[in-house]
């Protein structure tokens, strides 16, 4: 029963979404299924929060290595939750300036807005910027002309890297109009539009077929390992 009910739910929900694409009166049911998932995901946040609290509190109480980080995590988690729920320092909204809590929780000037603007935004932008350093180290290590295919990859990388900047214009901008297609900036676009598109299309078709087969296995209950059924 523990395995059967989730299987039936998965099958009914999945086939409903498929059928709603073909049966007009059932088109709204697809949205209903999606909304039900959104509700479930929202409730699951409570489970996630409980997991965070449990893991870090147990680490803190047992003084396991790295327990200091757990204090920081719990403090930041609690502070953000409290500040957002209580709308701390949120100015009143423009439509009701006399009511204290009329402003949106993300109203500029509020504490939650401050956390977003001065903590979350710069930190996420910084972490994203780390990619530049990782790309450089990956390029240094991975792009080796070990064989013909690797050499082709290397050459393509050079064309794209230079063609997507002004360096391409400086290096090959002098090419005459008859062979302007070989200018790095034009050649890089040609590579993207022809070779890259062909390869991507092939991968997309393969992925779509893989998704279809996997979904069918799940909907028909052939593959149940995601349920924890052990099958």
């Amino acid at each position, binding site marked *: 029963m523990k395995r059967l009910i989730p299987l039936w739910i998965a099958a009914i929900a999945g086939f409903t979404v498929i059928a709603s694409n073909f049966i007009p009166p059932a088109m709204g049911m697809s949205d209903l299924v*999606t909304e039900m998932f959104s509700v479930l995901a929202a409730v699951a946040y409570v489970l996630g929060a409980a997991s965070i609290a449990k893991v870090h509190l147990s680490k803190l109480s047992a003084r396991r290595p790295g327990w200091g980080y757990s204090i920081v995590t719990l403090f930041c988690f609690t502070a953000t939750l409290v500040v957002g729920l209580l709308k701390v320092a949120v100015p009143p909204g423009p439509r009701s300036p006399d009511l204290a809590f009329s402003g949106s929780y993300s109203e500029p000037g509020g504490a939650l807005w401050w956390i977003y603007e001065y903590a*979350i935004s710069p930190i996420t932008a910084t972490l994203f910027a780390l990619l*530049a350093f990782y790309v450089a180290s990956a390029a240094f290590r991975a792009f080796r002309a070990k064989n013909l295919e690797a050499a082709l990859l290397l050459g393509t990388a050079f064309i794209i890297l230079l063609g997507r900047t002004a360096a391409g*214009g400086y290096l090959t901008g002098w090419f005459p109009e008859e062979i302007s297609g070989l200018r790095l900036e034009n050649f890089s676009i040609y590579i993207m539009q022809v070779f890259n598109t062909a390869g*991507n299309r092939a991968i997309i078709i393969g992925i779509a077929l893989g998704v279809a087969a996997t979904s069918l296995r799940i909907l028909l209950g052939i593959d149940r390992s995601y349920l924890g059924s052990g099958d």
Partner: protein
Amino acid sequence: MGLAVAVPILLQSRFPEKPTAIAKHAFDTINDLPDGSRVLLAFDFDPASEPELGPMASSLTRHAAMRGYKMYFITLWPFGTQMLTDKIREVILADFPQLVEGTDWVNLGFQAGNEAIMTQAKSDFKRTFPRDVRGIAVAQIPMMDEIRTTRDFACLIAVSAGYPGGKEWVQYVVTPERGSATPLKAVVGCTGVQTPQLFPYYPGQLDGLIGAIKGAAEYETLVNAEAERRTPGAPVPAKYLEAVRRMGPQMVAHVLMVSLIVLGNVIYFVGRRRGVNA
């Protein structure tokens, strides 16, 4: 790498940008819409991708405002609301104060639900976005009167950093309408890593593709040229030169990577020869 990126910024180096045919196509698609067209601007990105997508979002907003289109701003990313607010403040409120909220532009904010929101907006836009960010019901917003579905827009302009984003807009909203009498035009701006993924959709399903900061710099150049044509001699504010400015560090970084690749290969071949000789 830090130096490679920092030096051009500190020296304020700028390099000329020659727009390519793809950027021109995106520009012309938006520029050639009839006067008073309704455009849906979906800014699906967060602060992490702001350095790459922020300048193109500013240029697209500026272009739409310059042409006098009616602008409808939405986002499907939770952190996208801040991006919307920033761009509206930077561009519309700062440089187009004559535009009236509710009549010329409206910020409908964020809706959770990913592709479900897209498919719902395709059939009932007002039910999908029932209020704007001020909390006003869309029934009370004059420019929402004429909107029923996504078909009522002349063009979709999506700036996306991942999922949900440009690819989902193409799959769920643009492609189903492609065979109709009035297909929805679509221009997508995306990050560099997403560009190869979206090329298969251009030009069959997409009318324009602005890829990475390079595409943003090309588009920005075109919009600045259009602004110069409309108001000759007016100085270009620095905020509309951001993409071009960021191409400086990009160029130096790319040249550095090419050098590292060459160095790595030299070391590899030298090491291999030493190994053979040994």
